[in-house]
């Protein structure tokens, strides 16, 4: 269980300080698949990075299973059980997919086991296991490898920052299937996905709508989803909600 208590974050933009996260408090329960959605620039990715320790909040506390992790480094948070999938996966000259999966697994891993993680994300393991994680891989391939590193790590709390970004339609079908599987085996863990996609929202137990750095709506999927869909896309509807909130 992750608790966020009065989290605020600000960043400097053109010499002016801009408040990006405004006093957010929320609890992510175990065994839950939570989707955070909302308009672009609403603070979703920043919140995800604050959870992973990549950004430091200016105030507030983070509590993971009763342990205050606010001051823990990225490394120590990873060791405490937080996993983070980047919106734009990083490329490494020289490191292979297998190297990355070995690091993620954190202990010696059999090649056959590493291959299982790749198969789960729809990549033919033998074609990819020894490939370098460099610019020869497409955005969609990198994204799936990124997700495979999280599967290999098997964290208590997994945070996915816009997993659908940069993925083609065919890969997207696969992605939904991966998240559905995760949803079904979430027991004892929790998953947070930052997403605009209705089909990902549809898998959620709980939906949080974040706009302008604050929680605009929060509740069970059945309660929130009808309110934010029905227009062209969840993005559009979120923007509508956001405008309403600003009135």
């Amino acid at each position, binding site marked *: 269980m992750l608790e966020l208590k009065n989290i605020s974050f600000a960043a400097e933009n053109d010499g002016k300080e801009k408040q990006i996260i405004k006093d957010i408090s929320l609890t992510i329960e175990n065994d839950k698949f939570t989707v955070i959605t909302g308009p672009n620039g609403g603070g979703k990715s920043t919140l995800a990075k604050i959870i992973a320790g990549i950004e430091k909040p200016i105030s507030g506390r983070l509590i993971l299973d009763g342990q205050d992790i606010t001051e823990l480094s990225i*490394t120590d948070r990873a060791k405490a059980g937080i996993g983070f999938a980047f919106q734009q996966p990083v490329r490494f000259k020289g490191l292979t997919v297998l190297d990355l999966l070995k*690091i993620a697994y954190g202990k010696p891993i059999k090649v056959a086991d590493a291959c299982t993680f790749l198969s789960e994300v729809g990549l033919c393991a033998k074609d990819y296991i020894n490939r370098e994680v460099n610019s020869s891989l497409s955005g969609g391939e990198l994204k799936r490898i990124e997700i495979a590193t999280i599967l290999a790590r098997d964290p208590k709390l997994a945070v996915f920052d816009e997993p659908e970004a940069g993925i083609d339609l065919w890969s997207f079908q696969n992605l939904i299937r991966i998240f559905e599987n995760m949803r079904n085996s979430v027991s004892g863990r929790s998953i947070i996905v930052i997403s605009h996609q209705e089909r990902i929202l549809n898998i959620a137990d709980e939906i949080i709508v974040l706009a302008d750095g604050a929680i605009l709506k929060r509740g069970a999927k059945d309660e929130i989803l009808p309110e934010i869909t029905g227009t062209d896309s969840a993005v559009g509807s979120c923007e509508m909600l956001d405008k309403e909130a600003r009135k």
Partner: protein
Amino acid sequence: MSKVQLDEIQKRLIREVADLHDIPEGAYNFRANSSLAGRNTTANIDIKTKEDKPGIDIIIKEGTKNESVHIPVVLSQSGIKETVYNDFYVGDNADVLIVAGCGIDNCGTGDSEHDGIHRFFIGKGAKVKYVEKHYGSGDGTGKRILNPVTEVYMDEDSAMEMEMVQIKGVDSTERTTKAELKAGAKLVVHERLMTHGEQKALSIYDVALNGKGSSADVVSRSVARDNSYQKLDMCILGNDECSGHTECDSIIMDNGRILAVPSLEANSVDAMLVHEAAIGKIAGDQLTKLMTLGLTEQEAEEQIINGFLK
């Protein structure tokens, strides 16, 4: 055939530079502290001591296939300075692996220096894979110096793949590699270099593509840490219809300095030459990604460098 006699330090150095845990199969020549420590020749590969200067001639018969030559050198006494001339004559259509390398362990106060001058005369249609590793260890104040010169003369349709590695412990190095390629010859070079402390490394390549259809691909990956300095000077000359590519890709850390000078000279309208050079520190998001997988910043850095130099 003479019996190889090496002490523990020498054995360790051999392991570092030649990946040898035992006496290799095939032809070999072990040189330790300026004298011959062991030699083996085969029906197809002969090794002779030069009479006019220090060094050996390695003569590989025409058509020799799937054989290897190991010629490691170790220096474990402080204060040795030597220049050694090794000439390789690779017969037409031979296909061989040549493993050279020098390990210096200097625990004393005198500088230890090994300057290996290697010349390769590669016959028509012959294929050579050449692996050269340099390694230094020992905590004495004496410097460990290696100044290798490699000259490659490639006859028609021959191919050579060179792997040049210097990762650890060499204080000062000036590496010069020259190659001349006739028609259809193909040269591939992978250089990996890491410097640390106050080390200085100069690596100079001069590749002349003289024949029609010749090609060269010279790729260097280097890491400069601490206060070390590297100069990477890579030149390809295209004198006929040919294709050449050089790439210097470097990671800079701490107060390291790197000067990359890739250069191309086209003397034929049909020469196609490309160079690429990039120098930069380790990207912050690379470190962050590996830290989110549980590595410390230092462990992440090591993984990135190991991968880069692999």
